[in-house]
């Protein structure tokens, strides 16, 4: 029934105007559909509410995009937000510290702890220069649980601590660490029993296991099919045991996997790995893009908007090129496009990080305070201007400057600085044109859609546009 969500979005917005800013009611209408989609994907209600509120705030008033309807644009904004929430920072397993380091695996019954334990152990041991790994089963409840880990250890070629009848989990953890110290083991994986009863002493036990092993890493293993309860589970484990990361299992199923978002949102813990099958090599790094796309279930809309954005960029670039070739001066709209492009390519830092030998340049940039915050501020200033002002900056006089500064949360000096910089850029453009002759637009400045990465000249150009210290060479 929800496959048609994209169609429904189309229906809601077909008749709406596609000019100007995104209106309140457009955003609200789109977000109603988004809310349903997220809930159907099992994203927990409080998380859905927060997300919808945040998107409403950030989307309303944004400039409407050409080529798509407001609903589609909002879906893309939601998508980007999901990606950001899910995987703001890439996170690996924390193996820092004096070996042996311990990793404790916790979760509900049947979530995939034992299987994931073996997968992770195998992966850690198999990495280039990877050390020796030991696994131990602390599950003394489930019949044959210890045997299960022993069999998996054999399959994975990873050592498993022998089981002793009647030993308690904390004792097993201590013995495992002891053994590891004596035999030169680098990492110890402690597989624990399932804990469905979130508030009884079993959580206490998990906390004691953590303590006894001195683990830095406590991984919550959770099933991608989990429903609304995901928030209770995740926050209970976070609070009582101190979860440091999440492993999402059964991503090979067809669940939309909203639990990933719920758990990420309520614990703030990164999702570190995904289980994508029963085999021991079915372990992958977490892909926020893929998971976000699945949760929202509107991949077609998202790619439509992306295509439209590309087209717009190409058009903008084309316009820019024509202007440039005709010898016309470029306006603040062009500057805005450029800043946007720069930011999209990962900001100054991301951009420079891709180039060889830029450490020095980066330092100089830092000294010149050309950082992403500056870019952001400049973009804000530009979007607080009216289209007329951007086309013809000469009309921006004192009172307009004050309005623009107030609208973008900066000082009037900042507006002045931007205008001055714009003039310099314009002057420079003329010079480049004279020097390079007709049509020699610096690579990358005009065609991000085609080239992706700006070439050397383009970077230099941008750097200069941004008033880098003279003589800076890449």
């Amino acid at each position, binding site marked *: *029934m929800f496959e048609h969500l994209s169609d429904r979005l189309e229906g809601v917005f077909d008749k709406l105007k596609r000019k100007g800013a995104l209106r309140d009611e457009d955003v609200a209408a789109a977000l109603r559909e988004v809310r*349903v989609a997220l*809930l*159907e*994907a*099992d994203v*927990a*209600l409080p998380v859905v509410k927060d997300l919808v509120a945040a998107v409403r705030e950030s989307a309303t008033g944004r400039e409407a995009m050409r080529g798509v309807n407001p609903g589609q644009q909002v879906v893309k904004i939601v998508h980007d937000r999901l990606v950001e929430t899910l995987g703001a920072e890439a996170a690996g397993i924390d193996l820092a510290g004096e070996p042996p380091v311990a990793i404790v695996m916790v979760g*509900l*019954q*049947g*979530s*995939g702890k034992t299987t994931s334990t073996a997968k992770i152990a195998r992966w850690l041991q198999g990495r280039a220069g990877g050390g020796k790994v030991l696994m131990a089963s602390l599950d003394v*409840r*489930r*019949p*044959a*649980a210890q*045997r*299960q*880990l*022993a*069999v*998996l250890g054999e*399959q994975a070629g990873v050592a498993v601590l022998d089981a002793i009848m009647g030993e308690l989990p904390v004792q097993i953890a201590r013995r495992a660490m002891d053994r590891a110290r004596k035999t030169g083991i680098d990492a110890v994986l402690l597989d624990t029993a399932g804990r*469905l*009863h*979130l*508030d009884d002493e079993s959580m206490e036990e998990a906390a004691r296991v953590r303590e006894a092993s001195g683990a830095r890493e406590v991984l919550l293993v959770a*099933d991608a*099919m*989990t*429903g*609304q*309860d*995901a928030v*209770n*589970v995740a926050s*209970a484990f976070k609070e009582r045991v101190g979860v440091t990361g999440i492993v999402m299992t*059964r991503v*090979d*199923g*067809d*669940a*939309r996997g*909203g*639990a990933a978002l719920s758990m990420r949102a309520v614990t703030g813990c990164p999702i570190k790995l995904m289980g994508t099958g*029963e085999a021991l090599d079915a372990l992958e790094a977490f892909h926020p893009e893929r998971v976000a796309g699945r949760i929202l279930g509107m991949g077609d809309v998202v790619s439509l908007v992306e295509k439209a954005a590309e087209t717009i960029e190409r058009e903008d670039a084309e316009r820019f090129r024509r202007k440039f070739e005709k010898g016309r001066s470029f306006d603040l709209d062009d500057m805005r496009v450029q800043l946007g492009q720069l930011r999209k390519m990962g900001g100054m830092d991301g951009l420079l990080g891709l180039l060889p030998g830029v450490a020095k340049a980066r330092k100089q940039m830092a000294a010149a305070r050309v950082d992403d915050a500056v870019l952001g501020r400049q973009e804000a200033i530009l979007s607080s201007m009216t289209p007329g002002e951007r086309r013809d900056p000469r009309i921006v006089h004192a009172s307009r400057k004050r309005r623009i500064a107030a609208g973008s949360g900066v000082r009037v000096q900042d507006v002045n600085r931007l205008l001055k910089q714009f003039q310099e850029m314009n002057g420079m453009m003329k010079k480049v044109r004279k020097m390079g002759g007709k049509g020699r637009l610096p690579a990358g400045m005009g065609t991000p859609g085609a080239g992706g990465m700006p070439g050397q000249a383009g970077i230099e150009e941008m750097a200069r546009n941004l008033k880098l210290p003279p003589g800076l060479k890449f």
Partner: protein
Amino acid sequence: MSEEGWLSRLRAGLDRSSGRFTRSIGAIFAGRRLDDGALEELEEILIAGDLGVATAAALTGELAGKRFDGEVTGEEVRAHLAERIAGILAPLARPLEPDPDRKPHVVLVMGVNGVGKTTTIGKLAGHFAERDRKAVLAAGDTFRAAAIEQLQVWGRRTGCAVVAGKRGDDAAGLAYGALETARDGRADLLFIDTAGRLHNKDGLMAELRKIVRVLGKLDGTAPHDRILVLDATTGQNAHAQVEAFRDMCGVTGLVVTKLDGSARGGVIVGLADRFGLPIHAVGVGEGPDDLRPFDAGAFARSLMGLS
């Protein structure tokens, strides 16, 4: 295995999560009429119980049409909803009833990974063993490490014979052999455990169908019960699970496990409406006695935070 024990246990689990739930409904309706805002909040509360958007909207929609005289309390609204939900579920509360004339009555147990298939078989076997029904267990999960040993432990616990091969054996062949064994031994029941499989994996689902087909060669009516085990922690994906397993080998009934946790299992309300499959039992723990008949009224009242 007293009735009261199970109720309080189930409720204890549900209460853990419905504390907040109960409070918020109370807050909505105490001394007020049901306005749109209240209904919306109520709908959200049902959604938070995993009932799903469509089911929650349908139930609150009915409530909007209903006239409450004067002021209504949160308790009254909850009781009303609980009754409505119990009304949907009650016709489906049907314990497993093996046909005593069949020797054996064959029960195939299936589901996705880790939901509690093996444990449920262990509990069911114990239940019938206590009633002097001879049950044989077939260790049909020949895939997962130590799955066979796990069922064997349950066999020892419940005094039931276990037919097992070794890891990697063909599950259909094993099931066939187990049916022969159970038949020769004049067993009343044969429970066939299967490996967990995600319902979107065609190859694995086809294997399940093969088990059904092979059993049919020995007994055209077998397997007599085809139980799908669902985990109460599961959200809306349970719909896809029921649909796929039903299409592949005709599910005849459900068991819902892990209701002793904080998840409410509310998805079964929507499932009941859509598939109308009997609910044979619920799992409320890991021990042999932690299986209970499904009590629709108690489930619904617990779901709504009522005692």
